[in-house]
């Protein structure tokens, strides 16, 4: 990278339902991250936010509404529609150009105010063909899960293990919405949503305002003695027509390859110490292991069987509990980056992994069966 960008501070609010006003919550989280960074609103160069109208109380042109609480008054600010890890990417670009020294990145979603997730994701369906059939992210995931299990002989127990791991990890995460000590049987016996997905294998509908302060190299070194560098990032989008796609070989590989190239990662297994990935459906975590290069195609089940991705495993994945524990839809990718930041700085409290984390991966995804992915590599 020609110019380095670092994350210098993060702030997040809890994922369980809150009776607070959206606008006020956004102000508090913004203020918290500014205070942590030791900066005032006036000093910030730019703001890039992420939100999406259907996930935003039905108030459209979302960033108009929360412009004030995110400190953007009379600033050159912008917004990504949808997954917030894309806002991180856009903010990093703004700093790399040299136009801005600091950029506040914030993802905003208050799940408790919105209808069920599938009522929202149904809105991705075109009105002529897919919508009358009721294609939602859950239905698409169920189709993908069946294909995955059939092709690679993945067992339902292996998928359930992801939920056991993540919901268990979440017990140590004060920001997580859903948490608990579950067995594989508990997971499999929870209500069926769309077969073979059961409720505990599907992400809940959570709240999340996640703010990160990004800074240029020079500025970052003034603001903190532990900057977390954004070493690389990448994204990729798949085709829309679900019947045209290979649901088992999507665009995460390309998104990751771009991030790895930028970050100089040639051997992800060896060079990545920890990963926070977006797994709205438990089985997808196994697929994402494969597409991130942690194992070969179809090898995800074996990886979880071995405990490879446990908190004390060789490559911990989702020590925060991931999205199965906390799903503030649009904010979830940025929350992964925030968690990775905390792990690298050794500030993840009870959910801090024991091994030293120098390089971490953050991942976000949205769209049917993971149509659109973003990956970021963070490092000390």
């Amino acid at each position, binding site marked *: 990278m*020609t*110019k380095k960008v670092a994350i210098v501070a993060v702030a997040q609010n809890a994922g369980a339902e809150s009776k607070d006003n959206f606008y006020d919550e956004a102000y508090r989280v913004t203020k918290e991250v500014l205070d942590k960074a030791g900066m005032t609103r006036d000093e910030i160069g730019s703001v890039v936010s992420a939100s*999406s*109208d*259907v996930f935003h109380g*039905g*108030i*459209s*042109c*979302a*960033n*108009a*509404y*929360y*412009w*004030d609480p995110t400190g*953007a*008054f*009379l*600033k*050159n*600010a*912008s*917004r*990504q*529609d*949808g997954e917030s890890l*894309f806002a991180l*990417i*856009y903010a990093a*670009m*703004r700093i*790399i*150009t*040299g*136009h801005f020294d600091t950029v506040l990145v914030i993802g905003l979603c208050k799940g408790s105010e919105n209808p069920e997730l599938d009522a*929202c994701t149904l*809105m*991705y369906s*075109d*009105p002529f063909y897919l919508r009358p059939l009721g294609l939602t992210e859950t239905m698409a995931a169920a189709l993908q899960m069946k294909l995955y299990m059939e092709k690679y002989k993945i067992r339902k127990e292996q998928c359930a293990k992801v939920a056991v791991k993540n919901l268990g990890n979440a017990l140590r995460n004060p920001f997580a919405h859903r948490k608990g000590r579950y067995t594989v049987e508990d997971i499999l016996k929870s209500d069926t949503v769309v077969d073979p997905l059961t409720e505990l294998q599907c992400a809940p509908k959570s709240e999340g305002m996640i703010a990160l302060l990004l800074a240029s190299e020079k500025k970052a070194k003034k603001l903190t003695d532990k900057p977390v560098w954004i070493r690389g990032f*990448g*994204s*990729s*989008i*798949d*085709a*829309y*027509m679900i019947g045209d796609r290979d649901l088992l070989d999507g*665009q995460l590989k*390309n*998104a990751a390859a*771009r991030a790895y190239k930028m970050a100089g990662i040639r051997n992800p297994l060896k060079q990545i110490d920890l990963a926070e990935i977006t797994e709205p459906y438990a089985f997808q975590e196994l697929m994402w292991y494969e597409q991130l290069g942690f194992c070969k195609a179809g090898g995800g089940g074996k990886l979880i069987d071995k405990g490879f991705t446990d908190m004390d495993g060789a490559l911990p994945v989702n020590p925060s509990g991931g999205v199965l524990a906390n799903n503030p839809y649009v904010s979830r990718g940025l929350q992964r980056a925030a968690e990775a930041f905390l792990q690298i700085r050794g500030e993840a409290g009870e959910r801090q992994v024991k091994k030293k984390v120098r390089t971490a991966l953050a991942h976000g995804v*949205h*769209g*049917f069966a993971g*149509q*659109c992915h973003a990956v970021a590599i963070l490092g000390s």
Partner: protein
Amino acid sequence: MGRAVAIIGVGQTRHGRRMDVSYPDLVREAVLRVFEDTGLSPRDIDGVVSGTMPSMMEGIALTHFYFSEAMQAVGKPILKTETCGSTGVSIAHTAYYWVASGLADLVLAVGHEKMNEGNSQATMTTVVEPFYQRYFISGAPGVFSMQSQMWTARYGIPEDKIRDAAAFISVTHHDSAFDNPYAHVKIKVTAEDVKTARVITYPIRLLDVCPNSDGACAVIFASEKMAKKIGRKAAWVKGVGYRGEEYFFGDSDKVVWESAIQAARQAYDQAGIKNPRKELDVAEVYNPFTYQEMLFYECFGFCDFGTSPDLVLKGTFSRKGSLPCDPSGGTLCTNPIGATGLIRVAEAAMQVTGKAGDHQVPGAKLALAHAMGGVDQFNGIMILGSKL
């Protein structure tokens, strides 16, 4: 600041009522045209950025999913930028920062809207929160009517003078639309027609306001290395600026309109422009309302506050004036909102590369493109020039 970036090609749809095509096909029409224009193929593109108005407009959320094939974005890095009416310029800014950062050499920017498939006023009402402001803001015309009143009262501009100047602008732009093959509304109007048209929100009448249009625009941004390699005439990005004010309509002064003033100033500073009226050859101002257009001239420093109606009536901002504004017919004649800001950028690029056909401003070398969004909340500017 960052690498040099140029626009090397544009594509627009025939804007208007396009019930002859589905929304994805409309998007594809613009994308095909920009590839034709540049001689490039989708394979050459390093990244795509798209944007549009909120989901309520056409009833589809996160449209970059739906249009992935139409934009030929499959397998590519993607960004989706949305800032209400200013989206078109925000998309252009996103593409600019992407290339300027060195992370891409060729970025495709696509803005689109199919307003005839939805209800635009009902959609715009959802921008306003339902606790307080939604009861009082009756779509865009009311807001601009109030802004206009505050402006004319502040500077003592007589009602009939402003009415005449607004009519002059309407006639000018409706005429220009005939010289723009892509423009939507092509009707011959006289000042008398404008002054006696149906009242929308007093004093704004039907011919003072933009239409609901279907349309898409695609623009390719390139690094200096790529622009030189491709060897076509390029429109260089000389400056960008953007500002937003408070969300609540009553919180900021909308006459000495700081978001517009400062967005322009930021772009001028980067471009080294000290006297915009003299140095700019053409301006594609976001102008859905004739009355508001004149206030933009003042906020952008084309003339002093309170003086634009006089200059309008003298022809200063007409096609043959000293600073032609919206020779394409502007937003007043064509407004597919998600695309509109990007169309202003495309038109500015066409002007400085001599490709504006029948509405070319002869010898144009430096152009301003602008878009406004929210309830008079956001303003974004891009300055394009024929020289690096």
